[in-house]
């Protein structure tokens, strides 16, 4: 049973400031969704390696050449607040 306090804990991990209405709604909906997830416990997965990626992937290396990637001026258009070449944030 997923309760409101569970949702509050998860929301803290996910950095979401949920409203009381949202907490109640998500608790109810998640409870119903997660009960379907429990079906998986019936499947025998002994000796079955978890699959994290659909195809075999290999490490990709590029040539060790210097490329100029200083695109700060273009990126700055999307930054909410800056000072010089820095991201400006409120006090920590």
């Amino acid at each position, binding site marked *: 049973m997923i309760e409101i306090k569970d949702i509050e804990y998860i929301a803290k991990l996910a950095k979401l400031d949920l409203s009381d209405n949202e907490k109640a709604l998500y608790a109810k909906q998640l409870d119903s969704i997660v009960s379907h997830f429990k079906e998986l416990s019936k499947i025998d997965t002994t000796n079955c390696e978890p699959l994290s990626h659909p195809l075999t992937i290999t490490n990709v290396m590029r040539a060790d050449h210097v490329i100029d990637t200083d*695109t700060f001026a273009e990126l700055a258009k*999307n930054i909410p607040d800056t000072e010089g070449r820095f991201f400006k944030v*409120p*006090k920590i």
Partner: protein
Amino acid sequence: MKSLVGSNIRELKTLLANKSVSAKEITKAHYEYIEKHEVNINAFLCLTKELSLNQASAIDELIARKEPLPLLAGIPVAIKDNICLTNYPTTCASQILANYQSPYNASVVEKLTNDGAICVGKTNLDEFAMGSSCENSSFKVTKNPCNTEYVPGGSSGGSAASVAGGFSVIALGSDTGGSIRLPASFCGIVGMKPTYGLVSRYGLVAFASSLDQIGPMGRSVEDVIFALQSIISECAHDSTNIKEPFKANLDDGNFISIPNEVSDNKPLKGMKIGLIKELDNDGINPEVRKALKNVIKVLNDQGAHIDEVSIPQIQQALPVYYIIATAEASSNLARFDGIRYGYRESNVQNLEDLYLKSREQGFGSEVKRRIILGTYCLSSGYFDAYYKKAQAVRRLLQNELLTTLNSYDVLLSPTAPSTAFKINEKMADPLNMYLTDIATIPANLAGIPAISIPCGLDNTHMPIGFQLMGKPFTEKKLLKIAYVFEQATNQQFNRQINNN
């Protein structure tokens, strides 16, 4: 002369080549049509008229200089708004990216542009591609051009509506659990999810990285063939992009030649097709099953041999998908913190407060639901029971699919358990909405290619689609069968544009 709107790529290429029309005329005709009908459909979040007219001028200059025309010269294309287009917004239909302008092009956009395609606009989607109806957009609800009381399907609903509505000839979508194929099926067009890694994801805003794949949508199989041919490429910016993809299948990777390679008599002779038992049962709408029966008959008449096959793990695909997709999404969407780009709440006490409030305000309801669900599945105490277990069952499903595909060329099923539903019909019940993806999810989990092809109309005249899945990098085989079906049924099920 046939109207430019509603023409296919082959027709437009011929008109351009013999100078019957200019690229600018094609572009203007599509914009006139958009300006008249978009108000009823809501396919677009942003139109890129200035860009498209410039692109059209460049094509007309090539024609004037008698230079060879690239593959998609002058062809209007729409781009899903989770794919980056330089100096235009990429919003993912989310408030958190409402003011975001892409500083770079996605690799697929570069490819289309280099091939001469004309970008008409960025299309609506479920926020961050999370949804099956296009109703989760935080800006507008796209309507199905076949009947505006119905959803176009999602999440690439705007792209499907753009193609089905005649606003563009082709469109790009992204498919994490069916987001290209489902709206293609609901709107009566063709949509393909390529093999994972075939098309670069660079410039696609990540939802679930092990499942996401960009793919083409069009009103005919041949239009999809042209679009796919353009967007396949090696990309240094995407480490999961496959080099020499077709080598192991001895496929030449030339899709454009498919229409010439299909023989007149029994073109599918020797093909073995497996009808998936678990996707042809009481859970599927009777009219969809009836249409599927006709598909079997047509493919049989064309020489294919069809058997019923069983993929038992498909019954677990839905929980596996919703655990893995939400877990990956909760991780991918952690980057939206209000610091480097995107929405930032101004009324905050400190940095922590800024994260909490910016994300709470910026994300919509379905996105937050999935972040919570994914975070829950990854949290201490639940990780093994949910996330790791889902990955193990994902392996079992992939094994079953690939083993069956050793004996069969392709697997056949409906694309969706039903036809399009009405706007607002499923919004209050997320679990019921998730069930819409039951037939499309397995291809994403296994990383294999799949295509949806129109195959009929139900009694309310809404389109029905069927799906073919194949082994990795057997796109050509899928497209060939799709093309043969379309020719055999004289394209009668494909969406036609009645442009008055």
